[in-house]
């Protein structure tokens, strides 16, 4: 059973990686870390300030185990 991940990228990432679409749907054969998922779709983990999966904040080392919608946040300038 493949795991389907819907990845959305913040504008903070897309303004750097201009050729990357705002949404990427990937299927993975087995659970993997957020970091590996990012690498697989060509997003340098260093550009990800944090990730949100189905409403919960995830670290780069957290494992995605089932179908999910993930938003990769780039960096923001607070204030």
């Amino acid at each position, binding site marked *: 059973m493949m795991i389907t991940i*819907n990845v*959305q*990228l*913040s*504008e*903070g*990432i*897309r*303004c*750097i*990686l201009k050729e990357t679409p*705002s949404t990427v749907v990937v299927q993975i054969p087995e659970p993997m870390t957020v*970091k590996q998922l990012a*690498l697989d779709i060509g997003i*340098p*983990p*260093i*550009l*990800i*300030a*944090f990730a*949100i*999966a*189905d*409403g*919960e*904040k995830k*670290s*780069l*080392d957290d494992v995605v185990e089932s179908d999910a*919608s*993930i*938003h990769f*946040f*780039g*960096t*923001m*300038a*607070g*204030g």
Partner: protein
Amino acid sequence: MLNGYAGTILRIDLTNEKIEKQPLPAELAENFIGGRGFVAKTLFDELPAGADPLGPENLFIAASGPLSGQFMPASGKTHFGCKSPATGGYGDSNLGGHFGPALKYAGYDMMILTGRAAVPSMIVIEDEKVTLEPAGDLWGMGSLSAETRLKAEMGEDFQILTIGPAGENGIAFACITHDFGRQAGRVGIGSVLGSKNIKAVAVKGTGSIPVNDPKALLEEGKRAYRDVRAKPGFTGWTPEGTAGITDWVTRVGALPTKNFQTSYWDRHAKINGAAILRELKITDKGCYCCPTPCGKYGKAKTGLGEVYVEGPEFETISLLGSNCLIDEISEIAYANYVCDELGLDTISAGVVCSWAIECYEKGLLDREAIGKDVQFGDLASVVHLLECIARREGVGDLLAGGVKSAAQKLGQGSEAFAIHVKGLEWSGYECRNAPGMMLAYMTSDIGAHHARAWVLGHDLAGSSGSVHDLISSEGEAEPLPKSEVVGRAANVIASQHLRPLFDLLGICRLQFMELGFEVEHYERLYEVVTGRRMSWEEMLSVSEKVWQLTRSISAREIPGFGRSWDYPPERLMGEPVPDGPNQGHCITRKEVDILLDEYYAMRGWDANGIPKAETLRQFGLEEIAAGMDNWACHRAA
């Protein structure tokens, strides 16, 4: 009737107690959109050249944009402008909350204050009724206390701006407070209001704003909210707000630490977004029409007392926290509260306090000068300095003009670690290995501020498009390669047009920047509100024109203004980072000049960073080009 605008400018000559209302010129709206655009154009046209920033001739401007107060996500921004007491040049700052929409509903797109009231006063605006009322009993009160009292006396329907003792005493980094924790923090805007003897502005608006197609606005607004709420990051971004990036900024070696001595601090997990949730937060707090409230209202318990406070957001965490080595989130929140009540910008305050403590450590300021022994990591030291500053007591008088002024007075090499550009203290990103971000700070039109351009990610991605993957796990600092200097200007310039565009429109940028809210929404919303079709690229062109204008204002106002005003302090230009991911890296003076050469050329400015006449003419700024031979930049400082 101008759709999207209230249609009236409110002018108050405080010296003569003269209140005038004039129609908003259509060409101003068409050529400068609103907010920051209105501020810049009005300052250039009406500010007497050479005006004293704290004199009656300076202007205090509050302006909204065409999308302010409209039915759409996060339409609550208000822009403020003046000649900056911090830099002597162009100054603006903005805040969220509800003031701008209320001012528009009262009938005014812009409020321009000139002169000086004879006695401490407040301005009360209740739709068409505008009065200047004595406020001597408020003078001396804290910002939050004054707002609390005015709300109790006048009612919750009034939206209120206040200043604290810092604004009354002409502190170069005094802010304006609104909504118990929203600040227009930068450039000393609070001192300009204080110099006019104005303690508060209260506005209640019950009118409406003409809109070109109300039915279409309703539909587009609903669609916008639906789209924002559908973003995967919608529910996850809000809980921590901007504090959520503290860990990342540390991982990439950009966290200002110990007066910018270094850029990495292993205690960041104690002061991050999770710490706010764990130790402080009571509820989220948002601005007008905002679906993603980033404000965090909470209770901080410290050895100095317990306070309720909005914040701290990331900038405050970095400057009052890591930069002062305060490693308890509750203590940072307490210092945040003290700044809010005194009416001090938390960014500048953090930089000034850390500079003073380093001076003490180096023996340049002693116990007698400061009034007590001070040290990094000590909340009581920071609070002591803040209170001295706001009231100009003891060492506070030295620090009142900001870190540039204080270092010039103290000398003895202290200028090298006074962290500012143009006299405005540096905000929350250390960038000795981030040349693009360094350039963004150097060329920001108000001084060292992050909100004008933010390209740290571009620096990390590399100028040639190559990327690094050097982070093995969160929290671990691994070496980053030295970033290339060449090829940085284009991204900085693009960002300097993009981010301030939201300040022209009168809305918050976070839904766009963080949640991926599409540009097409803004184009459609602008059209249904105003009836004018303008592409995103055309709006960016207006933003670019405003950038030329703001640089011109500083060139006109500051004797000797030019390249030397864009340099970072010595600490950030030659002193290698001692530890963390960027250990050993620095940017040299030669590299700084490479950055500036490229930037000036792309901007159409001369080698000294002054806009060329032909450049100004390209943007339709002929009248500005015509007078540039008389600008102060051509005279010796």
